[in-house]
């Protein structure tokens, strides 16, 4: 890996997947399910989860969708030709070699499959979220455990979808390299 490469995608993935999804959001969802299942008590979580924590998904959805899409263009080894030493290659070489390397990388790293899996995971989570929100609208009070308990299966489904999304995002390689 070269120091002067722009690794924005990698940082974006870290911010989304590691810092937000895994470290905070999934932990909160899991705690919330434990609260619904009467394994823990937490008045603060009880009051704030549905109104404050849960909707964070909406703010991160766009990033979740764009990360798999941007992976191909930002992490392909063909970007190595934008920086030294490969940028010094002749125009003639650059006209065919980057694309060849890109195609090889796509095939050997099963990039299309990784992207498809991540996109699918995002949409599954979004679908689960929509179902959950629709159910939330149908109950009289979103801060009452009595009503929220009925939605335990929907919370569980959304939680599992988020965990699966975390795993799918993790599968992308973390370095740009020719394979």
């Amino acid at each position, binding site marked *: 890996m070269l120091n002067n490469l722009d690794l924005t995608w990698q940082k974006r993935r870290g911010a989304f997947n590691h810092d937000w999804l895994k470290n905070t959001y999934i932990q909160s969802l899991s*705690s919330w399910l434990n609260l619904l299942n009467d394994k*823990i008590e937490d008045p603060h979580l009880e009051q704030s989860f549905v109104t404050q924590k849960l909707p964070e998904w909406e703010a991160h959805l766009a990033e979740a969708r764009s990360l798999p899409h941007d992976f191909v263009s930002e992490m392909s080894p063909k970007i190595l030709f934008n920086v030294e030493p490969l940028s010094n290659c002749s125009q003639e070489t650059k006209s065919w070699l980057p694309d060849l390397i890109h195609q090889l990388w796509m095939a050997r790293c099963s990039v299309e499959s990784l992207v498809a899996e991540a996109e699918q995971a995002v949409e599954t989570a979004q679908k689960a979220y929509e179902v959950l929100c629709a159910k939330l609208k149908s109950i009289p009070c979103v801060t009452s455990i009595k009503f929220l308990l009925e939605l335990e299966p929907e919370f569980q489904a959304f939680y599992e979808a988020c965990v699966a999304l975390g795993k799918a995002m993790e599968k992308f390689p973390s370095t740009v390299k020719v394979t």
Partner: protein
Amino acid sequence: MIPIYSTPHILVIDDLFGRVDENGRNEERERLCGNFFLNDLTGDTAAKSSTLRVKQPVANAIFCRGQQPVRARSGDTVENDLEGTLNFVRRYWIGLQPGEAPCSMVLLDLCFYTGGVTHESESQKGKGMAEGRPGDDLPPGYFGLRLLETLLNTFPDLPVIILSSMPRAEVSREFSGLGALGFLERDSIESPKLLQDYIQRHALIADASGEIIGCSRSLLKALRAARRASLTKKNLLIRGERGAGKELIAKYLHRQASPTVERPLVVLDSGTLSPELYASALFGHRKGSFTGAFEHRRGAIMEAEGGDIFLDEIGNMPPAVQNGLLRILEFRQVIPLGGSAGDARTIEVRFISATNADIDAVNTTGMFREDLYDRLREGGTIFLAPLRERKEDIPLLVEKFVRQAEASRKDSMARVIEPDAMEMLMAYEWPGNIRELRNCIFNAVTSFPDVEHLVATHLNLPGQGKQSPREDTGISTAGVVSAAKKSLTESLGILGNFSFETLPAAELVGALNRLSEVCGEAFARLLRVALLATRKPTVENPEGEMRIQSAMKLLTGNPGLSASQAADIIKRTLKVYPRLETLLEEDPILRAAHEKSVKLRPKGPQKPVIRGDG
């Protein structure tokens, strides 16, 4: 101070969960605790402000950021703090108060973000979190791996588990190589359950049932070995001195293996049985199979069907029983004594054996079958340290035994254990281990039932000013470990296996002379003891006449040893003593023996004669 809870104490070293935000809170830590069922005992403002209550915590957690400052604000710079983190772990691993258990396990993060705290880093990662420098979030730069290496170099027995949301595969080789025992994915659905499994397998935790008292690391490691062994059905060997609690460990293992299902545990103490009775007790017998076999008997192995059998003191097992047991272990079938092939019963039993003997030494003499030994320890060996090597457990044991002794007598008063008594109990070496300590305490309580204080004078310990005056031997016995406290085989084993490889060069200077001196002194003491032990009292000499031949027969184990051979041995043995002339001048017994030997064999011996084969 950490009280001894039945729930383990784990240290969590993590920048996100160990920090405190500027409002004194840490919401992410609360969520982690709610997810993994941890009770936050950190004692900082974050723990105090938490509204979380876990109904059945699997562990008590104490958090550490691993960085400075712990409470960082926007504009601050966060740096990793290796020394501070080591001190934090040291406090809970070594710097313990009396009766305080060491921490059970460490959960260690991999990625620690360093650098400036900015509004952006706070909104992205959490309040007080740094933005991260290049490499912080990639395996070669993980501070967690550096910390892991340093922790395990400093505290080699510390159980460490990685707790991370980073991909496991990228660091699997590194953390395994550095000695971490496992990896917990922070976000996995299975992780809370896996944490409980890791605690069972890797954490150092006291026995919650109260059957086995103590929180010394050596005891906790033995308990962990038992829990690990309980996960399989393989046979297991427990080694430890008499009275050290081997049977309690066997029972603990059995309880761990079947906490909910009733499975039998049959205990067979064979130390005092004749070979025939031993075989009968173990294998069972058919009516009329030997004199006195009036009824059929199932035998301990059949009684233990579906469960465990505990065989104590297997070093005493007669050869015929060893042969029979080996067949059973090979074919998993028992035929009672006097029975035929038709009486064979297939068995599903785990054998837990114990010995206080140096079974390896017994093995080499052919007294115990090696193939049987291997079968009996296929699931491993648990070593139980003697009480003198885990004296930190004595206060807890004393407390328990005093209360038990008081409860065993209706008229006994409840008493306070005074410091002078505890000091004396801590100073004693306890050759009989926990059993001896228990007897000592029970005697003290029984002898003084009507007092409110247990004081030193209530304790009847050997060497407490009640010994007969020792004869002046001329050989210094200061610092000598008596045979009662350490068996000769054990002492020789320590010397024989002593590894000189790790000694610094400075310690090797003059080592040969010192070793020779120590050997000479040990020889002289051994000779003296044998000479005294084989004295024969006569009318003229009621103290006993010295018999060098008998003394040397005893020491060599050679009943055919001649008087001149004995004389040669004495001469040669004493020659090793570095200051022979002074010794003979000061010690009348050795002087007499030496004079007798010289008289019998004025010249040197013809050939070496020390043999043990008769």
